[in-house]
Every structure is written in C-alpha cells, then in structure tokens.
C-alpha cells in the first residue's frame, strides 16, 4: 500500500493505492490520525484501492469517530469498485460522507 498526502488550501487530501488489510491498515490509521492533528478536514481518495478488508473498514470508522469527537471533517471520495463492494457488504456506506470526485469532496461543508 502506498500513501501520499497533499494540501488543498486548509484541507489535507490523503491518497492510498493498493491493498488495505490487517498488515497495512495500521499505517493508514497512523497517517489519518496524524493528518487530522494538523487540519480541520481530511479527504481520503479511495479510487486506487484494489482491496479492503474489515480491518480497513474498522480503521475508517475509528478515524470518522475521532474526527467527529473533535468537530473535524473526514470525507471519502472516488470509491473504487472493490471498496464499494465491501462497503455495501458490510452496510457501512451510510455512515460516511462519500463523494464521487475530489472537487465535490473539497466543496462539502
């Protein structure tokens, strides 16, 4: 899994590529928690994810709850077909703010 971060004004955009599983989700967790320390909004690009398991889903929910408890925003965009499949299978899609494009994710309030 590859992770990169860039800034769009005050917003941090995190991009991940590859597989999110038991072995890699701790790195994603660390990156997202760290990003939330330095901004009030993080947008996560899930367009290049080939695979995500329940540990990856757990990480995203944990980060969402952490952001909400600090009045910060954590939004997702560009869900790959693999991510969409697992989100639907685990019935978690409704708890996240999900956008199709980066522009929509950045514009959300």
């Amino acid at each position, binding site marked *: 899994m590859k992770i990169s971060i860039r800034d769009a004004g005050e917003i941090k955009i995190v991009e991940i590529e590859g597989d999110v599983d038991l072995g*890699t989700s701790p790195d994603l967790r660390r990156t997202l928690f760290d990003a939330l320390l330095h901004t009030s909004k993080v947008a996560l690009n899930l367009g290049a994810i080939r*695979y995500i*398991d*329940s540990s990856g889903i*757990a990480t995203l929910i944990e980060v969402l709850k952490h952001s909400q408890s600090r009045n910060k925003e954590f939004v997702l965009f560009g869900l790959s077909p693999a991510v969409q499949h697992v989100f639907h299978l685990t019935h*978690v899609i409704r*708890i996240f703010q999900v956008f199709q494009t980066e522009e929509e994710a950045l514009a959300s309030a």
Partner: protein
Amino acid sequence: MSSPNPSAPSCLHLKFAMPSDPRYLPVVRGAIGPLASAIGWDESDCLSITLALDEALANIIRHAYHNRADGLIELECRTSGDELEVTLLDHGDAPDKTKICARAVACDQIGGRGTHIIKEVMDTVSYQETPAGNRFVATKRLRRTL
C-alpha cells in the same frame, strides 16, 4: 496421443502452509480469487469469497496467534463440481465459539465484522477443536442460473 493419467486428480486441490504473518495475506488472496473464478463465480462473488477467507486468516493471526508472526496456518482448498471447500488449520488459541457472531454489528461499530462477513458470504461455516489443531471449514456452492 497419451492416455489420461489415472493418478491425476479430477478436481483442484490447493494446499498452502503459511506463517501467521499478514505480509502473506496478499499471496493467498491472489490464489483464491482466480480459483473461485475458475469454478464459475462472477467478479463480485470472487471478491466476496476472497474477502471471507482473508477474514478467516486474519482472525487466526489476531486471535489464535495474538499477532505473533511465527505461527503455522495450513490452508486447503478443494473444488468438487460446483462447490468450493476451504479448510484452515492452526495451532494457536481456540476460538470462543460463544462469541462468534454472537451479536449484530452496528453500522458505526469499529470492529467485529470479520465473522459476520464470513457467515454472510459462505454457505456453511464450522469451527472445530481437533487433536490436529483448530479447524475452520467453509463451503460455498455455485448456483448456476439457466
């Protein structure tokens, strides 16, 4: 033309032995998806089956071996007609069967989805303690539409 080898198996029998190290999970996933595809499942079902077995392996790593990377996990996949049977064997702590899928998972609950995913995707799932170790067996049958 040579005659068929009578010792050749009539179905695919795949065996892996892997350490309880998450680094090897992608290797197993890379075998399960194409195997399910060869039986006839579509891309979506192949992903679900891969996810279910990956969750079972992850549970062994986390709960049987407590994230130690030096435990042994043996995996066997057998195909028989339209059915896939997967057996996992480990020598770590046995699962507490009273806690497996004991409660529904709330949408915003952080963990606890693995066994629910396995149950939802596979047709049959069993957990047994045997003299050879903890045995997880799951099957799924392809339902062909006419």
